[in-house]
């Protein structure tokens, strides 16, 4: 059976998976022997599958594992806070109580955070200038590489960012996070 280049391209992925029958396989191999183009496609495709399949392609951000484990630890049953953890929690409670009072006396209470997954900030200096992107969820220090949508950023005071529901960036504003 003779196969065309088009048929080879259509089956090349299945060929690499070992999922073509013996007859088609033999025909494709015959084709490869006489077609430099299809051989180039086969070799290249096989090579890229090997490259992408390597563990080294799973690069995670610096500190990813540490942050993941910390998050897990906080959610483990029977998790006991360290002394520092209790101090931070106590500070958070005071702040929350304070925020509640402020919200009660204000026409508009503090809005919901823009992200369900974000943590509210603690001790953020209200006059500090921070960078936000219009459709983003977090506020950043100028130059932070994790600013989303750099084409639509603005610099505002932290109090305004908090009022609009932005949360501190987990990287550049780490010191203002509760955990």
């Amino acid at each position: 059976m003779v196969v065309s280049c088009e048929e080879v391209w259509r089956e090349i992925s299945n060929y690499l998976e070992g999922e073509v029958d013996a007859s088609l396989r033999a025909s494709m191999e015959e084709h490869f022997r006489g077609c430099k183009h299809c051989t180039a496609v086969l070799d290249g495709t096989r090579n890229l599958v090997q490259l992408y399949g390597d563990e080294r392609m799973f690069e995670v951000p610096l500190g990813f594992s540490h942050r993941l484990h910390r998050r897990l630890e906080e959610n483990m049953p029977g998790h006991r806070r360290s002394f520092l953890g209790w101090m931070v929690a106590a500070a958070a409670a005071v702040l929350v109580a304070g925020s509640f009072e402020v919200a009660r006396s204000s026409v508009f209470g503090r809005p919901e955070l823009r992200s369900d997954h974000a943590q509210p900030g603690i001790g953020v200096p209200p006059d500090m200038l921070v960078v936000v992107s219009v459709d983003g969820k977090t506020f950043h220090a100028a130059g932070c590489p994790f600013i989303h949508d750099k084409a639509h950023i603005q610099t505002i005071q932290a109090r305004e960012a908090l009022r609009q529901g932005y949360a501190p960036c987990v990287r550049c504003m780490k010191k203002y996070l509760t955990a």
Partner: protein
Amino acid sequence: MPEEVTSLEHPAKPFNEEMLIQRIRDGEHDLFYELIRPYEGRVYAAAFAILRNEADAEDVAQEAVLKAFKHIRQFRAEARFSTWLTQITINEARMWRRKEHANLMEPIVDRQDEEGNYTPRDFADWREIPLETLERKEIRQKLAEALASLGEKYREIFVLRDMQHLSIEETAKALGISTASVKTRLLRARLMLRDLLAPGFGGSWSSKPLFAKGTKPW
């Protein structure tokens, strides 16, 4: 002449997960760290494949791992733990994207007719790139950029099958699509990636960008 081919080998499970999972269910919660450690990078990569943003991918990866811990009793041993974890991650990432970017339009490339045949555009005979080149950050970066430029449905398939080493059936199950669709999209993903990378693999990566930002050659 092609080498004697060639099914693509995929690694086996590294340790006895079943026993570990049972002990976690029995209350040894700290063992969960050990269970997920080999998969942390994969969870992140799966989230990143959908969200294409480091900060979002990290948040979603954390949520997915947390969810896996909370629901470990629901895990059924007939599936691999890695597949189950990947499935949770994919669901979390899709929910996150729906919630955060509900107003975004679907990329045009995602609406392409996947039934049509894909014609390779570059027939350059590239030299074989040895795995050792992955030690070079710029090579990993080029590969990541090329992958990120694919439409989502191709990216997902490629990441699950060729990077996470899920089987065709597991990939189909994780994404809720047929095995025939997995095969069609996988073929396209591989050929598109090859077209993107072929010029660089020919030796020009050091002198010019792989492709202009925001453009796709198909």
